[in-house]
């Protein structure tokens, strides 16, 4: 037997390599349906998408997204609350059954939420062609 394969250095290197490979193989935490349907731009971590639902009302898809603004996290060193200065905007993107965008882009609407406040944001599809939606949120200031 070749001594190279039985040497402790080789065994340790092989074990480390195998463990690294297995680490790469494990997939990251699967995205939830809410995360898949939400597009975030800028620093929007303080705004949580709590709930998402949709219904076809009078032939038009109506979406409702519940969001909550937790505000910025307190300072790690002092524990002081930081002022909530970020301003956010949101809009809905409407997709047809094939996943193609229908209608032109919506206007970004200001999200007027103070710290710890939540809101139900309702969007109505512009045409009966819309079969699903995406929720987009951005930090504009």
């Amino acid at each position, binding site marked *: 037997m070749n001594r190279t394969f039985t040497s402790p250095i080789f065994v340790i290197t092989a074990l480390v390599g195998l463990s690294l490979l297995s680490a790469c193989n494990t997939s990251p935490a699967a995205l939830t349906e809410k995360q898949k349907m939400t597009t975030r731009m800028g620093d929007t971590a303080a705004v949580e998408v709590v709930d998402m639902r949709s219904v076809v009302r009078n032939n038009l898809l109506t979406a409702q997204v519940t969001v909550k603004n937790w505000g910025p996290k307190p300072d790690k060193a002092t524990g002081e609350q930081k002022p909530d200065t970020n301003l956010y905007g949101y809009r809905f993107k409407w997709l047809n059954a094939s996943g193609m965008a229908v209608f032109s882009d919506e206007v970004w609407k200001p999200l007027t939420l103070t710290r710890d406040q939540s809101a139900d944001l309702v969007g109505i599809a*512009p045409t009966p062609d819309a079969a699903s939606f995406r929720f987009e949120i951005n930090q*504009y200031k």
Partner: protein
Amino acid sequence: MKKFQLSIVLLTTLVMGACANKNVPQQSTQIYIPSPTVVKYGDSQSIETVTADFGSTDLQTVAETMTRSLLQSKVIQNSISAPTVTLAEVKNQTTEPINTRMMTEKIRTQLMKSGQVRFAISANEMQSQVDETKRQNQSGMYRNDGTAKPSRMEGAKYRITGTISTIVKQNRDMKDIFYNFNLNLVNNESGLLEWAEEKEIRKTVTR
């Protein structure tokens, strides 16, 4: 004494030098060099907060909210075919100079794009319709079979009317503007108000 003479010579030299500087030719016209500017395109849908006056975001939000609500109304959705509608110009009841024609046209375009309603021309556009029909029929320049015949216009079943109004309050440090936009759908035959929607916008400016 020598020191005194030396100081006199130095002083004279300085005075002469100062006078000599005056003779340096100076430019009679100054060239204005403007400060450098940057031109770039922006997202037409982004949130605009330059001032608290009625802006593009307000216009787009109002048009979007109103049209979506109208399209979802039973009057529109329960119609067998796309109902004919006419849109009167939105009335500006604020103290601000708001381009209500732009708002009216934006609402109409959004409704047209949905394919759920058809628009008959409004009272404002009637004159151009009459002029064109007259031109085709009375100028003697057109073939008879190709002209737009008079008395063939389609009347609108519904009309849309709208108003925008404000409440403005301010003190030394703060200004609060509350916009209220109303849109109504009226049945032209019965005179019934079939649908109404409002959109409220609050904007504040602080020093």
